[in-house]
């Protein structure tokens, strides 16, 4: 169940789609948001909402990019529904597709994925979360 505080509501509404891909995200402290039962890494609650809105927008944009890469890899027809919840296997990805997707993600985001992590990714959201975590740790 979504649980929003008043503060978090306003933060999310500040999120803007324009985002510098290499924007840095400082290491977390304080509040951790819980949305739909998923815990996002805790995010600095500073009056400078800009950093925060960057974090939220990054997640949405990451998911979108992952969806695009998956659609391309699996040659899904236009209009196919791919969302954060989409499981790779349910979309018809086999193990060769999955490793190609990982390669595509590494190239797109400039990250390097460990074999252990690569295997644990089964959905678009999991891939996006992993990417964001890796991007975060690059600071």
């Amino acid at each position: 169940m979504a649980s929003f505080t008043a503060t978090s509501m306003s933060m999310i509404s500040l999120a803007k789609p324009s985002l510098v891909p290499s924007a840095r995200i400082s290491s977390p402290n304080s509040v951790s948001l819980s949305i739909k039962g998923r815990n996002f890494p805790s995010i600095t609650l500073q009056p400078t909402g800009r950093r925060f809105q960057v974090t939220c927008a990054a997640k949405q944009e990451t998911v979108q990019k992952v969806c695009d890469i998956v659609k391309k890899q699996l040659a899904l027809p236009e209009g196919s529904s791919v969302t954060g919840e989409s499981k790779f296997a349910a979309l018809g990805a086999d193990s060769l597709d999955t490793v190609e997707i990982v390669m595509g993600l590494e190239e797109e985001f400039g990250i390097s994925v460990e074999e252990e992590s690569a295997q644990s990714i089964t959905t678009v959201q999991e891939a996006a979360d992993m990417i964001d975590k890796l991007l975060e740790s690059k600071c």
Partner: protein
Amino acid sequence: MSSLLDKARLMMNIHCLGRNLVTVSSSLHHVQLPAQKEAHFWYVLPDEIKDTNLLNQYFEILSPSEKESVFRMSGERLKKRAILARALVRTTLARYQINCQIDPKALKFKKNSYGKPEVDLQYTEDWNLPQLHFNISHTSSLIACGVTVGSPIGIDVEEKQRRLKNDVLAFARRYFSPDEIEMLTQIADPELRRLELIKLWTMKEAYVKAVGKGFSNSPFNTFTVRLGDHLKTSVDLRPRVMSKAHEITVEPPDDSKNISGNWQFVLLELYGSHYAAICIEQESTNRGKRSIPVNLMLRKTIPFVEDECIFGTDKAVVIGGLTTLLEC
């Protein structure tokens, strides 16, 4: 000889008794168990199966959770593939009971600690079920199930015409071992290189699935698979009983605490359109000695309808590994 025995059994209608078992007189042709060093390779061609009644029959033998998985697949084609894959596993394993009939629906499965599916024998103490190992692989045009007794098995099937989205060498550099990258780099023709990559992929995948500890415990770049004489530029399509010494070897990582044992490979070309790799563990008494061939029985099936023994035909050609194809 064995078919007479089967007919007798069917007539006597011997059913396995046990809990949760609804006895069904099945129209599955029974087969002898694989012997040691023997592997059975069963496959279906989805395009041959269009009858919705038959597909419903297959769907009905699935467990509730398997049915749920089918519903989660996106689109009719993927749903059909999922149904066929599970039905192939259940009907294939059900054939191997010698003394009585097993309802394919009654088989139970579990996963090992790394997620590899296995037959759950806990429920079958009444049945005298042999220690069957199995592994499946599917492409859109061919779904296969490999079976052995007493040896872990891994299989992988790929369409020869499969195009990678990435450049072949870039892909190899990312995932394969240095020796394999070197081998691929030396192939000048891009098409041959791509085919060689697909072959390597199927063999490596079959190996990891046979070991059964997951992709991350056997990263592809930590072991090298060699297919002897890989630089041969044409595939001999004459039907063969025993392959020439295109031996396939695997060099495991130095730290072999995760991977032990001696593994044997078979590489097949099916219908000129698919590569299929099979990997089984060589029995320990034979390690270090000259390899003896893997005995392989191939069968195309439409479960509940018909089986076809694939032998002495160029529908299936051994292109790697010491193998003897068996008559059924």
